């Protein structure tokens, strides 16, 4: 037992703490505030405290639990909402009321809930970390696979099916060092990545139903993406759209230092939204971690690790998991704040010198992997991190360190947002380094010509930005008809394809098959325009065609009747354009 020697904000210095290890969890003061050792000098420990330290004074006791900050992993995680150190917020509400008071310890998983466990492993079998012992239907969407914890291997001595709580023993493993009991849950230290057998190359896109992402800047399952943007540019809406519509099996949404009402919105909307494939409420595959901006700063620092550890756990079961972190800038700021209190020598803009390393380590926990298991099952964790650069300036340290390690960059643009072009992903600045990796998938699963179509669309948009510079000087009328036609088709690309309303019931999600048909329709209209111009038509004439209204309403074509509707549209289009030239000019 040690005593407090100094307290300043979330940092407490404790003296006389014997046997302290780095990152051990300690309890501070009579209230037992939870903290973590982040520096050791002799038996003097520096502790970052996850709760408000008001009222703590020198001489208060500090107890070491001897354990590093861990999360409990087991059935009951899904549909939960946690704070940054995995305290369930609904349990806190039940016990503390509407405001979070300090020093309260809550079990992360419901200890009383009984789960029906179906054993699948055979007694007497050799098992090791990752071996599936059996299953629990956690939600109608997700079959929870109960696994041998990493690091345990031996002979399965006992295992039974039946109804258990997470505290009941379900069996045991005889290892070289003795018998290890098995339960439905296991603990894992948040700052240590869960081990895997092998990391795989990215090969499958994480389809999100968002046209600008899936078509132009796709992220692979197991990949990393970064969304930086100034406030009001739609970061949170983007993140929420991905959480809603991406074809991951499990979604972990970390609200790190953001608005309380945003988490409320997620809580209010997700149970009412249906997964497009299964028609089940989205909440059944979702885990929320909410450490809002006014909650203690050190717990904010921990929240991203809590989130990714949970994501890795479901990955190990063989699921594709998507983790949204909104916003990693707040996480970095928490590091900065604590580093400042420690009086560490600052790096850039006051951030600690280890900022880049921590960011890289975090994103490195993503990936498509072969899990630690005899059955070679594959799973993935895709990480999408929002960044909130001060003043929208991407040259600041958090953006730059994130861009160095993430492979997709969705640059949100305040200028687009202020004209209500949403999602405000700038098509000229953004990039995806997965395009090459995913090309074969699109070719084999979607259409041979999807890659070339995508390329042509990007070139058209680039050409548009060059032409716009000329227009700024001389006006549109000075351009030749062919170039006016390029402006015309790129405007269609921008307004009818790139723009997508998150609030429209139909437009909010576009399947990849529909994306392909929409893109093909617009570009072939562009080709026909060029043809018609070659035959003497003008862009002015072509712009008056009534069929264009149908083109701009393509987004409302129901997913069920794609083939017929688009075939009809393409025919009408061709006829309409032909009528312009046939009628003579």
């Amino acid at each position: 037992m040690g005593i407090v020697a100094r307290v300043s904000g979330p940092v407490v210095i404790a003296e006389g703490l014997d046997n302290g290890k780095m990152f051990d969890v300690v309890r501070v003061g009579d209230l037992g505030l939870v903290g973590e050792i982040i520096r050791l000098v002799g038996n003097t420990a520096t502790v970052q405290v996850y709760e408000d330290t008001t009222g703590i004074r020198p001489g208060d006791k500090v107890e070491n639990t001897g354990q590093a900050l861990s999360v409990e992993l087991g059935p009951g995680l899904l549909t939960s909402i946690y704070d940054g150190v995995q305290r369930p917020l609904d349990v806190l509400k039940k016990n503390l009321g509407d405001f979070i008071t300090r020093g309260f310890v809550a079990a992360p998983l419901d200890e009383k809930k009984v789960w029906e466990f179906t054993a699948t492993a055979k007694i007497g079998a050799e098992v090791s970390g990752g071996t599936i012992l059996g299953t629990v239907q956690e939600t109608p969407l997700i079959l929870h696979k109960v696994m041998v914890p990493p690091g345990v291997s031996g002979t399965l001595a006992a295992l039974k099916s039946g109804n258990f709580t997470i505290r009941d023993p379900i069996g045991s493993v005889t290892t070289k060092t003795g018998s290890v009991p098995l339960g439905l849950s296991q603990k894992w230290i948040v700052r240590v990545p869960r081990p895997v057998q092998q990391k795989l190359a990215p090969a499958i896109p994480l389809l999100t139903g968002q046209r600008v992402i899936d078509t132009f800047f796709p992220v692979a399952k197991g990949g990393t993406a970064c969304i930086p943007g100034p406030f009001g540019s739609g970061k949170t809406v983007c993140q929420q759209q991905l959480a809603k519509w991406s074809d991951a099996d499990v979604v972990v949404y970390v609200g790190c230092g953001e608005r309380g009402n945003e988490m409320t919105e997620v809580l209010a909307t997700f149970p009412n939204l249906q997964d497009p494939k299964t028609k089940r409420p989205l909440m059944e595959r979702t885990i929320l971690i909410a450490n809002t901006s006014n909650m203690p700063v050190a717990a904010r620092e921990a929240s991203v690790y809590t989130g990714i550890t949970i994501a890795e756990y479901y990955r190990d079961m063989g699921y594709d998991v998507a983790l949204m972190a909104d916003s990693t800038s707040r996480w970095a700021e928490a590091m900065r704040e604590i580093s400042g209190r420690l009086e560490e020598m600052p790096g850039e803009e006051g951030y600690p010198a280890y900022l880049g390393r921590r960011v890289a380590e975090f994103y490195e926990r993503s990936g498509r992997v072969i899990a630690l298991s005899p059955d070679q099952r594959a799973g993935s964790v895709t990480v999408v991190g929002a960044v909130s650069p001060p003043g929208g300036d991407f040259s600041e340290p958090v953006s730059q360190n994130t861009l160095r390690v993430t492979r997709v960059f969705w640059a949100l643009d305040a200028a687009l947002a202020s004209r209500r072009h949403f999602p405000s992903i700038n098509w000229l600045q953004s990039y995806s380094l997965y395009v090459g990796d995913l090309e074969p998938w699109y070719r084999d699963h979607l259409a041979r010509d999807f890659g070339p179509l995508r390329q042509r669309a990007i070139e058209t948009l680039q050409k548009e930005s060059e032409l716009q510079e000329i227009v700024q000087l001389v006006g549109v009328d000075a351009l030749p008809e062919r170039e006016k036609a390029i402006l015309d088709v790129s405007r269609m690309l921008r307004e009818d394809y790139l723009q997508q309303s998150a609030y429209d019931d139909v437009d909010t999600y576009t399947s990849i098959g529909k994306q392909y048909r929409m893109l093909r329709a617009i570009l072939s209209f562009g080709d026909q325009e060029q043809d018609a111009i070659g035959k003497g038509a003008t862009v002015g004439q072509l712009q008056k065609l009534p069929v264009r209204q149908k083109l701009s309403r393509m987004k409302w074509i129901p997913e069920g009747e794609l083939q017929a509707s688009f075939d009809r549209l393409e025919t009408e289009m061709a006829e309409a354009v032909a009528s312009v030239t046939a009628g003579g000019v």
Partner: protein
Amino acid sequence: MASTKPKAAAGAVSSSDMPIDYRTIDRISGPLLFVRDIERAAYGEIVEITLPNGERRQGQVLDSRKGLAIVQVFGPTMGMDVETTAVRFMGKVATLAVSDAMLGRVFNGLGEPRDGGPRIISDKELEIVGNAMNPYSREEPSEFIQTGLTNIDMMNTLVRGQKLPIFSGAGLPHNQIAAQIVRQAKLRNSSESFAVIFAAMGITSEEANFFLKEFESTGALERTVVFLNLSSDPSMERIITPRMALTTAEFLAYERDMHVLVVLTDMTNYCEALREIAAAREEVPGRRGYPGYMYTDLATLYERAGKIHGRKGSITQLPILTMPADDITHPIPDLTGYITEGQIVASRDLQRRGIYPPIDVLTSLSRLMNQGIGKGRTRDDHRGVADQLYAAYATGKDQRALSAIVGEESLSEVDRIYLKVADRFEAEFVGQRPDEDRTIDESLAIGWSILSELPEAELKRLKPEFIQQYYQRTKAA
């Protein structure tokens, strides 16, 4: 303090020791006192400082270690010395006695009466640093507040429980705008009015008088609580002032079922006080010398807006800040914008052209707008009209810039219509009189009237049924 042990009073930090006066100030630096030989000062504990001339001031422990406490003084340090000035540790954190009797009263930045009236006596003392609201307890704000300003109601809708700041600049009429909102804000079809908490930090007495007169003349004063810290008052008080205001707001909202509108002005002065302390403590500065924890600190204020499941009242915040040099990327508006649910941005350009209220629609935003509008709240075509107006105004402004270079003649026919739309939008839709209180239906009608300038094919963001219902009717009229 009573000599008997107080039973767990609010704010107590478990101290049964008799308070002792420490005359061991080691150093005074800016607003900070370094007090030696104190063994067990609690972090955040309130201290009372007695000056050689008997005057008393308050302070708070910012850093405590064995044998040293660093105390931040709320007020000037003038007249303090190291030999005889006494520091008493009060064994509690900062609290505020709250009661219904606060309505209609004016307090200083520390919550002491400023209007010559009696002190507030109440057995209800609340800690002014409130605990964080559990996100799980929050109720999604969705009740439309009609401010009577078309620009806000139509394009940047305010809802109960929202925090929506006004980003302004020196010389812009943010005070008039705020006063008009306070005066006119109401729920649709309801006469229920808001209780108003007005917290002034470092504003001039002229500005303060403007607001007080405004509250008085509209009869709002009796449902208003005012906390005044003027520019001549100690800057350190400003750290406390908004917390006093929000603590009062929480009491009125969650224990008295009132709907509270909190006006905080000017947040720029608050942030500067924060920077002053950080500099005095020789902390590692963040951007432009503001402390690295300013985001967290501001969040502990702004996040106290909201609604709670199962409780009747609500807290809506209307912070005002002046952007130094109109720079929206300055740390104060920047960090604020990352916490608040949108922003109302005042525009110098519109102001120069004589348009009131000079609110720039394109950079303003209300993140909670969608929850507050539509069928049953405002009208089913609201979203579409707003989107279409945004797009039309943005296009019109582009055409205006373009026509300045190439001349209006070289614009196409449609583009010239857009020019006209932008002009009408600014003059009729944004512009209104300071005493003009428009209903949402009036505002929508103005919107449709402007949109009826455009050919039907341009109305891509409006559903066909609305075009039929409103566009064609407006056009025919």
